[in-house]
């Protein structure tokens, strides 16, 4: 199955104020390249679903906002005229039809000839490896099967844009991980423009060419997963994505003075010559455990959690707040034990003021 074009999509000045006056979305400009997978990520109520619904045509943006599919403005077209494919969190499969009926619905609505319809339904069912379910009723399907039928139904109409609203949230963790890999492979292979809404950061990292992190109706940061993870633009992104440690202390002679010792900073920051209170951030996996004598910072183990491939340590005494680090390997840690930490200055994250 191939899709004719990879449609670029653009939102221009799209805000959304609900009838009761609450502002769900501040005016937003967002461009999505043809074939790109863009993930909208954020906690509930951040406006990600509203953004998706504006793209879909299920909500109209506030006056002034414009939605463009390629060169064409579709702001005033309802969803049924936009030729999008949508996968809903609850799947929204029709209980009155069997699997083939659901997958063929969009083709029936488009009045495709019977033979052509059958051929395309069979093709999509085969692609999703659910051909043998064609004549099952929806209530005879498991959650994972329903998810695939929903995806097949959305793809059968060969949409210009694929919209996915938390499509994996209703599934258990193991299945979620598997289907995530499948969806990723599918999107890459089809080369379709896709917008994917989720509150799960690992899903966002794995699937997104770019991630839009949203917070209370605003875009907090847009960028590729690595940039979002390693160079968060602000405190919200830093704390929402992954685990982040905060070190706050006095800057003196290019080193950050903390309760647990003095941490060397990178050259450029040290050269600023600025003194005074400052803060830096680092990820748990950025710290290396070493002997106390050779370490820049020293702390005590408050608790140690063995995770198999690594041990997650919560340390007291390093900074004003507890610090979480990860130690690889077989070494065992006792509560109260003193451990030393070194952190490469390039792994330290400074937020723009």
């Amino acid at each position, binding site marked *: *199955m191939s899709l004719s074009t990879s449609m670029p999509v653009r939102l221009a000045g799209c805000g959304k104020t609900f009838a009761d006056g609450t502002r769900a979305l501040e005016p937003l400009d967002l461009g999505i390249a043809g074939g790109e997978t863009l993930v909208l990520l954020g906690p509930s109520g951040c406006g990600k679903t509203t953004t998706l619904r504006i793209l*879909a045509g*299920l909500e109209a943006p506030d006056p002034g906002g414009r939605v463009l599919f390629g060169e064409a403005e579709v702001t005033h077209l*309802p*969803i*049924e*005229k936009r*030729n*999008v*494919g*949508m996968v*809903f969190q*609850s*799947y*929204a*499969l*029709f*209980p*009155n039809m069997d699997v083939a009926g659901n997958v063929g*619905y*969009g083709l029936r*609505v*488009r009045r495709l000839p019977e033979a052509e319809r059958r051929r395309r339904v069979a*093709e999509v069912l*085969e*692609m*999703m*490896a*659910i051909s043998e379910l064609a004549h099952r009723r929806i*209530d*005879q*399907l*498991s*959650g*994972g*099967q*329903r998810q*695939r039928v929903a995806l097949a*139904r*959305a793809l059968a*109409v060969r949409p210009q844009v694929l*919209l996915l609203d938390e499509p994996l949230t209703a599934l*258990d963790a193991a*299945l979620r991980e*598997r289907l995530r890999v*499948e969806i990723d*492979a*599918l999107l890459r*292979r089809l080369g379709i423009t896709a917008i994917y809404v989720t509150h799960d950061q690992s899903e966002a990292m794995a699937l997104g060419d770019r991630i839009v992190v949203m917070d209370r109706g605003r875009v907090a940061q847009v960028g590729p997963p690595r940039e979002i993870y390693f160079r968060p633009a602000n405190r919200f992104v830093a704390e929402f994505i992954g685990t982040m440690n905060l070190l706050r202390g006095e800057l003196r002679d290019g080193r950050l003075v903390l309760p647990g010792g003095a941490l060397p900073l990178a050259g450029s920051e040290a050269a600023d010559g600025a003194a005074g209170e400052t803060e830096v951030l680092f990820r748990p996996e950025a710290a290396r455990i070493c002997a106390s004598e050779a370490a820049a910072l020293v702390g005590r183990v408050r608790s140690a959690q063995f995770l198999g491939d690594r041990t997650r340590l919560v340390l007291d005494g390093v900074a004003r707040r507890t610090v979480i680090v990860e130690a690889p390997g077989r070494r065992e840690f006792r509560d109260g034990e003193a451990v030393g930490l070194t952190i490469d200055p390039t792994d330290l994250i400074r937020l723009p003021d």
Partner: protein
Amino acid sequence: MLRGGTSRRGWGFWAQLAFTLLVCTFLILPAVLSMLAGVTANFFQGLSSGLTLKWVVQVFELYSDTLLLTLGIALACLLVTLLIGVPAAYVLTVRQSWLTRLVEEVVTLPVAIPGLAIALALLLTYGGFGDFRQSWAFILVGHVLYTLPFMLRAVMAVLASIDIRTLEEGAASLGAGFWTRFFTVVLPNAKSGILAGSLMVVTLSIGEFNLTWMLHTPLTKTLPVGLADSYASMRLEVGSAYTLVFFVMIVPLLVAIQAMARLERRAKRTRPLREEALPQAVAETPR
């Protein structure tokens, strides 16, 4: 064997069984006797006078027009409640606001208000329109007012339980316009509610007495009104035969309602199945 039985089930079980049977007998006996009276040659002599169908025949001779009128009104009432009730239930479910909640409450009022009061209000307001007042349509209006909430409730309950809004959004995303969605997604999925509501409306309309008694004219008598009339002015056997006819009409409908409810419960019990081994999708590119 008997000892084994009594030791398994204590005297409490038998006492409860006896009590239950007693209550059942108490409730069922009048119905049975009444129907029996309808086929007894002479009620005052008892069954020894012999069984006959002549009273039933007499009922058909005297009241066949009420029978037809009752069925006619019931079907007309069903048609009107379907045409008004199903779209209304859809709108009330999909557009939740203070206005729709108010409408819902107002429409439900006739269930709580005595039929006599509704009839009186109708007579006060429209009694002056002679042709209308004397036609069966006048009774139909009363029946529609009274039965509409039952249709509404039945359909709304089903629509609410299947999250019709998201289903419609799904259909819209696949290119279906409003009418296509309504006929291919909304109606088929509301089917069980529509069927349950329909049976309810027909049953209630056939059995309705309060309203109808106030609204009827000598020429627009329905079955229950005719029943009251025959009790008041005919031999007891004729009235009883009338009851028999009524039972024969209404019982199949009641059984159908029960069967619907059972189907509904069974449908609710089906849950998503256990995850089966899913074959790997997207393994190869079919051409």
